[in-house]
């Protein structure tokens, strides 16, 4: 399980910035600014995690049990509440009510995983959902343009195999983009610029944490820059 430090934030949109060498970096902007509203501890809960809140929630939209939970820790109600598993050492660094600073958790160049909920496409056909090619539109084709074609053989095995790509509900599922690179951090506005796209539409909740397949993505050896020198001989 990914227990590397992370934040929850809101996807703002995409833009491009220039790197120091003048290259263009296409970036997704994520606004953080989440507050620690609770903790899970090994002694009490059997695991350690930070409970994070994002955005303000109007009092009249807060249910009584939820309001009670916030009142206990002396905080204003938050719109989104999420738990992020982390090491006990990381959890110990933060107190209730403290805002997670993007520059304390991440560093520029770090590899991170971004998780969001993809856009819902409803019930979609195979062309949209699985990028099928469809059928030929001439040579006598009749009412068979966007179909998926054959779904199996006749007698052997006499059934359609499980897992076959067919029409159905597409999107609105949790998607993770792994090993993205942090291009820039703007701590004064709690903004993170991540190279490449992040799943989901704008104003969407995204979870960003150290890359699980890169051991947190920090302190990795720097990739060798191509020198552009011509080969000798």
């Amino acid at each position: 399980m990914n227990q590397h430090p992370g934040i929850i934030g809101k996807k703002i949109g995409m833009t491009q910035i220039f790197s120091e060498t003048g290259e263009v970096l296409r970036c997704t902007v994520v606004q953080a600014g989440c507050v620690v509203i609770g903790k899970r501890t090994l002694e009490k809960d059997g695991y350690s995690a930070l409970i994070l809140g994002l955005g303000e929630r109007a009092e009249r939209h807060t249910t009584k049990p939820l309001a009670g939970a916030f009142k206990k820790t002396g905080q204003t109600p938050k719109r989104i509440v999420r738990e992020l598993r982390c090491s006990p050492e990381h959890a110990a660094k933060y107190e209730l009510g403290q805002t997670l600073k993007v520059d304390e958790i991440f560093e520029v160049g770090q590899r991170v995983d971004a998780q969001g909920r993809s856009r819902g496409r409803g019930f979609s056909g195979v062309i949209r959902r699985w990028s099928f090619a469809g059928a030929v539109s001439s040579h006598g084709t009749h009412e068979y343009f966007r179909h998926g074609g054959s779904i199996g053989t006749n007698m052997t095995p006499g059934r359609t195999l499980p897992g076959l790509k067919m029409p159905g509900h597409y999107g609105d599922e949790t998607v993770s983009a792994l090993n993205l690179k942090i291009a820039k951090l703007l701590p004064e506005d709690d903004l993170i610029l991540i190279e490449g796209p992040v799943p989901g539409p704008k104003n969407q909740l995204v979870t960003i944490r150290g890359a699980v397949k890169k051991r947190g993505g920090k302190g990795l050896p720097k990739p060798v820059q191509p020198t552009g020198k011509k080969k000798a001989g």
Partner: protein
Amino acid sequence: MQTSNILAKIEAPLFREGIPDFRVGDTVRVHYRIVEGEKERIQVFQGVVLKRHRAGVRSTFTVRKVSFTVGVERIFLLHSPRIDKVEIVSRGVVRRSRLFYLRNLAGKAARVRDAKD
């Protein structure tokens, strides 16, 4: 598309100042920084502006020249820090915003009328 205030704030410092107001049909000299290993040098690309794509910080412009009878087009990012400077060589008079028709013309036909004439 509506740009959010936050994106506008990020993009604001990326805009370059001092770019001359050249237009489609103008002949420009683009001084472009090229890094080769350790060394940096400036390459000049002179040609007719075929197209200007005005899109905030992502704006680009396309320059076409004919080099040894071969047409060469380059797309530059208007606000790229790699562009040293852009000089306007001459102003052209054109009647459309995209000069793609120049690609099909050669020699004397592939000229743009100069604003001075």
